[in-house]
């Protein structure tokens, strides 16, 4: 083991971890707004798949990843809208609507791919942008400042989400609607409208997370491309206690553990690789278990809002 974990190796682990954290961060920040408004959307995985396909297909047809991102955002908004109609307007049980949306998104993305693309097709995705000067700093330069645009976007969204949630009146409304919808309603805040807005925003960010997988990482599309990442993102919202910084911490912890386990395998350090693959999941559970205490979940999470009835 000695000497194996040299500085170079650590840089690779960290840089990879940051790249891996991006889709979790995007999807989890979106889901955070959704849950803050009192809805939980288990359909994130399905929205991610639709976003991944839309981004891929638009990039393939239009030749530019930026248009791919734009179209992916639009599709994400649409998927969020579907969830909103079902779970807010029709007040359907949220867990099951989310699973329905997941199946629908998985099926539709696979169907469209087969109908309009088929086979293994490559695209030219986003290129890394080295930030001048900063990327030349020894060690941390390549770790932090040589990624593609979506990686920077995801990390910039953390403080931005914090500002929106805690410092704007809209953020205040979101939190009010998630905690005391009746009170918010009495004060003239439209619970339905806020929840629609949050679900659409969450859908857009989930789709962006999906688009990152196709146009920011794989540069191709395959069935089930998200491979469970959407569900991990939902778990990270709980891990992060519905706060952007908590989500950042959780995403980084999970991804660094993943990046670390890949490196351990590559370097041939001998232990069953299954153990290595489950390491990120184990670390997340343990981290949560040892930091136990009161969980600050939005009080109205999962409860459809019915004007004039209480609790």
């Amino acid at each position: 083991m000695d000497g194996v974990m040299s500085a170079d190796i650590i840089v690779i682990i960290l840089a990879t971890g940051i790249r891996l954290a991006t889709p979790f961060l995007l999807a989890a920040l979106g889901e955070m707004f959704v849950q803050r408004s009192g809805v939980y959307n288990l359909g994130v995985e399905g929205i991610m798949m639709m976003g991944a396909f839309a981004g891929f297909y638009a990039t393939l047809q239009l030749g530019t990843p930026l248009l791919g991102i734009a179209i992916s955002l639009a599709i994400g908004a649409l998927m969020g809208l579907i969830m909103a109609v079902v779970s807010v307007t029709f007040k359907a049980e949220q867990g099951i609507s989310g699973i329905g949306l997941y199946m629908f998104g998985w099926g539709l993305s696979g169907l469209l791919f087969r109908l309009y693309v088929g086979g293994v097709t490559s695209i030219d995705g986003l290129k890394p942008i080295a930030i001048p000067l900063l990327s030349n700093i020894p060690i941390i330069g390549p770790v932090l400042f040589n990624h593609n645009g979506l990686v920077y976007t995801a990390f910039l969204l953390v403080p931005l989400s914090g500002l929106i949630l805690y410092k704007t009146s809209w953020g205040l409304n979101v939190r009010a609607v998630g905690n005391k919808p009746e009170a918010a309603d009495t004060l003239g805040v439209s619970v339905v409208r806020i929840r629609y807005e949050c679900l659409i925003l969450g859908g857009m960010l989930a789709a962006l997370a999906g688009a990152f997988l196709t146009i920011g990482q794989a540069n191709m599309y395959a069935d089930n491309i998200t491979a469970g990442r959407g569900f991990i993102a939902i778990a990270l919202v709980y891990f992060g206690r519905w706060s952007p910084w908590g989500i950042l911490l959780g995403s980084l912890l999970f991804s660094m553990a993943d990046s670390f386990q890949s490196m351990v395998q590559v370097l041939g350090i001998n232990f069953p690789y299954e153990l290595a693959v489950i390491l990120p999941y184990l670390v997340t559970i343990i981290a949560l278990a040892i930091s136990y205490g009161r969980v600050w979940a939005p009080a109205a999470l999962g409860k459809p809002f019915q004007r004039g009835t209480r609790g």
Partner: protein
Amino acid sequence: MSSNYNGVFKQIMVLISALVGALLVGALFLLLAKSDPVKAYGVMFSGPFSDKFGITETLVRAVPLLLVGLGIVISFRSGIINIGAEGQILAGAIGATAVATSLPDLPAVMLLPLVFLAGATCGGLWGGIAGWLKARLSVNEILSTVMLNQIALQIYLFLIRGPLIDPKEVSYGTGVPQTALIPEHIWLSKLIPGTRIHSGLIFALLLAVLVYVFLWKTSSGYRMRAVGAGPEAARYAGIRVEWYLVLAMALAGGMAGLAGVVEVAGVHHRSLEGLSAGYGFSGIVAALFGRLHPLGTIPASVLFGALLVGADMMQRAVNIPAAMIMVIQGLVVLFVVSSDYFLQNPDFGARIKAKLFGEKADGEGGK
């Protein structure tokens, strides 16, 4: 009485309308896939019910769906959102297989109960972990069960390719990750020869009645539901909330574990890759269709099993991509959950229903 019949009629009509709505939207995608929706749906609905093959295959799916669904009923009724059935199924399957393959000479009367017990215990322990984490350390169960699914899958794969691999796979050098066959004398007997339907069906039905009795006729069941209805109030009433949370998750995991046992003893006769056909998720849907009632879950499992079988048959009959199956399932789930609203808001429901039936008549006219 008559108003009750009216209510039943209305509820059926709303559910049927929801199904029709989902299928109409699905038809758009079928047209997109250049296949004839009328023919496709014809196969999807007639396939599972038209012959012995379709009916038995439907029931083969319904058995694990029902068992998982019963576990979901117990956990959701106790206020726990258990998404971990998929991992609990695997835990049950591998526990059962390990016991069955290591004691091959035991007579069936002893081995079979032992195998069921082992599966239920492994599933129960796996579910119990999430319950304990929630009760003692306030770890959210959605988080822990999602993570535990991944962990269970990897441990399962490790066991079937490593310590529990069929020795023949090693000696022939093929190395396929599967365990040895369990002894033939404990294979669940087939209810109809030449099909796959096995006696696990009867077991699952009996268990459904048992769960109903447990939840509604025993004090433990009552306390569990009280915890689900409101943990604070339950605590105030002197109920040990933590204990019932763990118990609920252990029972839910045990049920899912039994689903794993039944799949091993009734269908595959060993543990192998792709053992669960996504029953961990479909079981949640079945339980919710059954209105989180153990007896309601019975017809719901059959219905959902038929949907799975019919959609799969559709792939072969009209040659559409397999992904279409998921599209239709997703739409059915979305429309059916939305339809609840029309039951709770009769006026609004009546208006929309009139519109829907108008549309439906048009669609039939066009055939």
